[in-house]
């Protein structure tokens, strides 16, 4: 049975600390654009923590929601790409082939979650961050789109290791950088085709919701809605 990778995010556990964002930047060689470019809307965070205030004063409640690519089954970004740079993998991921991308940015417009990012300039890192680049992840050149991959390099590495040792990939063995970096253990990654995996059990919970579900994009990221009033 082919894998179908999914993620569950427990919003009750999320503290909004932003460790997932930092881990994602470090793992995936995401350029830091600096304050001037960030002010002009060029900040690149494959994963962002959205912060919403709910209710009226004094009964306000703070809510955090980490938003990354939802790896939709019916992804609006895929059919619009004229060169197949944005395409669907056998394991249900919305992959982006950087070398094939010509930068029409149509995928980013079609994406309802705004989780696709454009390289406005050649990537740069302030010293000494340029010494910590991850050798498993390619650097994207100017003029292409990039996005969350569910840390496909980690998925592939685990699968190669499992195959070499003639075993199956165990549930919880693969941890994308955001999952690994989350101190509150708010995120769980795994195979949604395995009904016994932890991510499947969490997604089936009554608290499980999908972001902008009514658009029919069939996301593979589940959010466990908040119940606590803390």
């Amino acid at each position, binding site marked *: 049975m082919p894998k179908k990778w999914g993620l569950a995010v427990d919003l009750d556990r999320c503290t909004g600390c932003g460790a997932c964002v930092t881990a994602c930047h470090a793992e995936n060689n995401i350029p830091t654009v600096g304050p001037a470019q960030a002010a002009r809307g060029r900040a690149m965070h494959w994963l962002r923590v*959205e912060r919403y205030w709910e209710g009226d004063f004094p009964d306000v409640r703070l809510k955090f929601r980490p*938003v990354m690519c939802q790896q939709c089954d019916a992804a609006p970004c895929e059919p*619009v*790409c004229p060169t197949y740079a944005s395409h669907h993998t056998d394991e249900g991921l919305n992959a982006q082939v950087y070398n094939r991308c*010509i930068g029409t940015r149509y995928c980013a417009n079609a994406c309802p979650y*705004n989780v696709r990012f454009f390289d*406005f300039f050649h990537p740069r890192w302030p010293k000494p961050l340029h010494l910590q680049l991850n050798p498993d992840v390619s650097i994207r050149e100017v003029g292409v789109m990039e996005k969350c991959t569910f840390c496909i390099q980690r998925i592939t590495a685990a699968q190669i290791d499992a195959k070499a040792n003639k075993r199956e990939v165990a549930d919880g063995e693969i941890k994308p950088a955001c999952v690994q970096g989350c101190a509150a253990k708010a995120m769980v990654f795994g195979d949604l085709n395995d009904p016994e995996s932890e991510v499947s059990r969490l997604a089936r919970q009554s608290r499980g919701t999908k972001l*902008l579900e009514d658009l029919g994009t069939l996301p593979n990221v589940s959010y466990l809605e908040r119940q606590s009033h803390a």
Partner: protein
Amino acid sequence: MSDAYTRQLNDDLLRPLLQTSWRFYLLVAVLGSIVATGLGTWAWQMWNGFGVTGINNPIFWAFYITNFVFWIGISHAGTLISAILRLVNAGWRRPVTRCAEVITAFALMIGALFPIIHLGRPWLFFWLMPYPSERLIWPNFRSPLVWDFFAITTYLTGSVLFLVLPMIPDFALVRDKTTGWRHRVYGALALGWTGTPKQWHRLESAMSIMAIAIIPVAVSVHTIVSFDFSMAPVPMWHSTMFGPYFVAGAIFSGIAGLIIAMAALRKFLHLEAYLHPLHFQNLGKLLLLMSLLWAYFVFAERLTIWYGNEPSEIAVMNVTQRGSFAPLYWTMVVCNFVIPFTILSIRKLRTITGCVIASFGVLIGMWLERFLIVVPSLGHKYLPYSWGVYRPRPVEIMITISTFAAMTLLYVLFSKLVPIISIWEMKAGQHPAHASSEAVAHDAVLGETRA
């Protein structure tokens, strides 16, 4: 047909080809330097990266796509209007058709550049084309951008043919009236035209076929341009009415462009005897009709969205009509509806000057309309956390200005090299009853339907 009239036609319409004043060179130099600056700006943008524009996350399309839709829209003046007028045999079209068809060819060339200018990696634009690649990769035929590629190349090929076919007899005329290098160049362009009945018959059949074939192509082109937007699940883009709405808007701005071009030709090439107030009146009525149609579309679109009260769409509509885009929105309404409706519905104001003022209003209004379709929606998609604002940067403004200069430059050069009014069609249009050359100046000739 009177010899005097034929001679006068030849003299008037061939004069721009044979005599050139210093003013022409000055104009070409000025326009040429603006175009060169624009090209230099584009090169600068490629060298430094796309970040020199005002594009940001989430507003990934802005000025360039606005210009793309605008110029493809302008291209609907020529071929479509000319084809319809040819099919209904409107006699007054004869002096209008060629200067209209040229607009199509040049506006399409400029418009088609913008999808390339706006690419992150423009040097790879040919990946949109289905060509035999050693990697066996085809373009994605599900993508509206690939449909665009086919629609625009089809329309450009068709409208260039439609423009060039009726130029053949005029090239032959220029060949016969000139000596030296002009004789040789126009001789080659005339493709051996000698004016035998067989040749005339073939030309007429080819024109009839082209006039019928080009209409569905023109309609499909702007429909497909609208699909770039309506295929994406973006608030206020994802609309079933975008196809006809865009086609109507395209014809609307196209007629405005044509009126301005005709008024300029009339003034600078002294074509008062050929482009009459009647032509402007008729095109002005057409512009009025399209203005009403445009207002109807906007009303239908806005009312249904307001009534439907879908949160994401209402957010876009509010920011457009009441928020930060409101000054642009209401300028658009004034330019596209209030000004043309007032000027063109009052007979006394429907003069050449009146039509030109209304047309300038429409060009501004229609450019704003496209901007207001592209930008507010992208800035206000579903998740408020990722909303954004857009401000154009000098790069985008310079490239936009230079395309207007490019259009003018191409038009000026064309009117210098080709008779801008079809001489043979004017001759064919002269009714046998009007024997004297004085009668020609009368509007009566314009009212007749068929030679």
